[in-house]
């Protein structure tokens, strides 16, 4: 029987609550808006003796991720959290964590990168880290942020993977928005994540090892091939863990969260919190007879190319919404759009695809924006023509 408690939590507190229940060996973190509430709340748990965690208050995010790498190499279960410029400052070590195959778990409360200085939500921070070798899960709500963080432990530590996992939630919208969150019993979380016994550990003094040694042109390539192979095994683990989490919590998770996609001829794809507004509008449009559906990806890394092609079979026109720009990419498109285009092309699908950049620096997206997108999709499906490949929602033109 699933035992859970309903609590009023914002996304940041939901993440801190999950961290308390996970009770990691080490947390090294530096506060940055809008992630601060995660670290602040967790450090209170440490001060109150509610966790056994060694909390390292570091002098920067570069130091935070460096301390996480050391602690994870020592064999600890390690977590941190950051946002925006903090993630950017971690950059060098973010890659090192993945390449050293250290299963570190990090909450990213998505925030726009400077400049100009902005503290509000967009996905430029985590999307910039999309090729760093981390698994990326995007959460729509505080509930998903909580659930994803607990699942991330099992995903990261899976012996086939040993890969770090980033769990995203939208800054302020999710991070500071109080919602009803169903929180599992501490014992249920403890049972689900199990005990971490590292396969490779610096503190295993009977079997001394060297981590992160010098690697020349005679072996570096082989190690990168291993790394991409581990990532290719991640999707199965994510799906298995999502299903098992459903048995524990009553909330199952997959690669996508599809809505009204069964007979859809038009589809909208969007990550994270905007999925809620999109779903409401799809429901309304369906009641008006428009054959439209929502395909909200939860997993962005590894990118579910084959699964996406399967989900979009029979769809005539797809609108992909991006909360960041891949500057200099085709027509200045967003990263989700580019990945979707690549997946559809590789699968030989001929669906028309159109990109919308929205919500940069915390700009709100409203229901009428989705109505505009749906109207454009109907035109594209009818004429077979995409007038403008990359468009902007809510921008003063």
């Amino acid at each position, binding site marked *: 029987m699933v035992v859970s408690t309903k609590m009023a939590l914002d996304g940041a507190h939901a993440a801190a609550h999950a961290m308390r229940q996970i009770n990691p060996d080490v947390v090294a973190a530096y506060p940055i808006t809008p992630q601060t509430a995660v670290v602040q709340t967790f450090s209170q748990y440490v001060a109150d003796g509610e966790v056994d965690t060694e909390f390292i208050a570091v002098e920067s995010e570069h130091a935070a991720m460096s301390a996480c790498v050391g602690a994870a190499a020592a064999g600890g279960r390690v977590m941190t959290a950051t946002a925006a410029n903090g993630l950017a400052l971690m950059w060098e070590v973010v890659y090192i964590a993945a390449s050293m*195959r250290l299963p570190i778990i990090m909450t990213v409360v998505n925030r726009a990168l400077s400049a100009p200085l902005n503290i509000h939500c967009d996905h430029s921070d985590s999307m910039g880290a999309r090729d760093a070798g981390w698994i990326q899960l995007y959460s729509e709500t505080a509930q998903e942020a909580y659930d994803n963080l607990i699942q991330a432990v099992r995903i990261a530590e899976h012996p086939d993977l040993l890969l770090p996992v980033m769990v995203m939630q939208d800054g302020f919208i999710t991070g500071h928005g109080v919602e009803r969150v169903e929180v599992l019993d501490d014992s249920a979380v403890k049972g689900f994540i199990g005990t971490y016994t590292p396969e490779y550990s610096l503190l295993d003094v009977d*079997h001394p*090892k*060297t981590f992160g040694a010098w*690697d020349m042109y005679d*072996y570096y390539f*082989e*190690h990168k091939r291993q790394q991409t192979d581990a990532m290719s095994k991640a999707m199965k683990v994510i799906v298995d863990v999502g299903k098992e989490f459903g048995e524990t919590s009553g909330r199952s998770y997959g690669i996508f969260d599809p809505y009204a996609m069964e007979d859809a001829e038009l589809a909208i794809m969007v990550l994270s919190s905007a999925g809620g507004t999109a779903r409401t509008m799809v429901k309304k449009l369906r009641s008006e007879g428009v054959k439209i559906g929502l395909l909200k990806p939860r997993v962005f890394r590894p990118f579910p190319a084959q699964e996406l092609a399967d989900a979009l079979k029979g769809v005539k026109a797809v609108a992909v919404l991006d909360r960041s720009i891949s500057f200099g990419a085709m027509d200045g498109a967003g990263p989700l759009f580019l990945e979707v285009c690549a997946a559809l092309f590789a699968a030989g699908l001929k669906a028309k695809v159109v990109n919308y950049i929205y919500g940069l620096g915390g700009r709100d997206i409203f229901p009428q924006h989705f109505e505009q997108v749906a109207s454009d999709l109907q035109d594209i499906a009818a004429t077979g023509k995409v007038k403008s490949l990359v468009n902007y929602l809510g921008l003063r033109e």
Partner: protein
Amino acid sequence: MPKHKATWKEANIAGMVFEPGSSAEYNTGTWRTERPVHDMNKCTHCMICWVYCPDSAIIVKDGRWVAFDYDHCKGCGICASVCPIKTEAHPHTGKAGKVIQMVLEQD
């Protein structure tokens, strides 16, 4: 230790090294452009070169200088620099100078 030229499936995960002291198996001597040469006739076995060598590439037995470990000597020249003993005609170079002198690797 994985076998020499392991494939990506055979190589240790993330380039981890599972044996302590395995750097002895890495022949850094191939990096050398100059190498030290030694005059055994004049050497007093003071062991100052042994103390200073950063790569433990001076082989000593029973308190006496035996040889350079050319598999690991990188040719930095510190031994030649710190050697305090003079020779009038070095058996390798024929030159007056120190007991340890540097010559080109191909010499």
